[in-house]
């Protein structure tokens, strides 16, 4: 049903979400959910529809955590 290359569907209600707060970075979020800040790219790729730059996230933004 899924493989390593399959990103979670944007409309998958079981994909975890996170609301960005002040001071967050994708690396911090990756640390929180994956234990490894280097995996921030996974979050960035899963949110390309709302993020154009991994260094620019805003408080209140709702991000999918694949």
């Amino acid at each position: 049903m899924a493989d390593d290359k399959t990103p979670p569907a944007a409309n998958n209600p079981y994909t975890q979400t996170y609301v960005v707060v002040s001071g967050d970075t994708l690396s911090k979020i990756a640390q929180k959910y994956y234990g490894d800040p280097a995996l921030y790219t996974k979050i960035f790729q899963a949110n390309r529809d709302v993020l154009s730059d991994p260094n620019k996230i805003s408080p209140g933004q709702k991000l999918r955590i694949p």
Partner: protein
Amino acid sequence: MKKQSAWLLASLAALIMVGCAGQKEPAEKALASAQSALATIHDAAQKYAPDQLQAVETQLAGVKDSLAKGDYKGVLAAAPALTTAISGLKDTADAKQKDAEAAAAQAKDAWGPLSTDVPNMVTAIQSRVDILSKSHHLPAGVTKDGLASAKSGLDSMKAAWTDASSAATSGDFTTAVGKAQAVKAQAADIMKSLGMSSG
């Protein structure tokens, strides 16, 4: 006097024989009617009330035996009870068939949301497992054993989901829903163990 008695006995015997012969046709008709009634409900009874069917068939065999022995009076005496038993069997089979059809319709309705929920859950878990497998350190609350268990759980969930889908394709929604609900429960447990249950 002796001649008179013998004549009376012979007459009585003849009357009894005529009487019995008079009961033969109604007895045969009663048995044929019961057999016909049972034949019309046999398949449904076999499926929904097999034990009760067996009891009725035993009862019917007894009546047949009576007929074969020429006990027409016995056949006619047993016929009402047999008719009642067949009628009761029909009622039971009809009620159970109705219940089964209602349960099947309910299962078909339940299958709809499950058929999208479960694959979505498995996809979300697969994605998280793939990413965590590349992580140098697991996040708080997630253990190596938990991750290993999630990986093996994915395999078993995919196999069970294939079974559930096959059952649904063949129209057996009751089995499909049972299997799908088990997969969904397993998926929920795995999501919890991977910290995917909260935002």
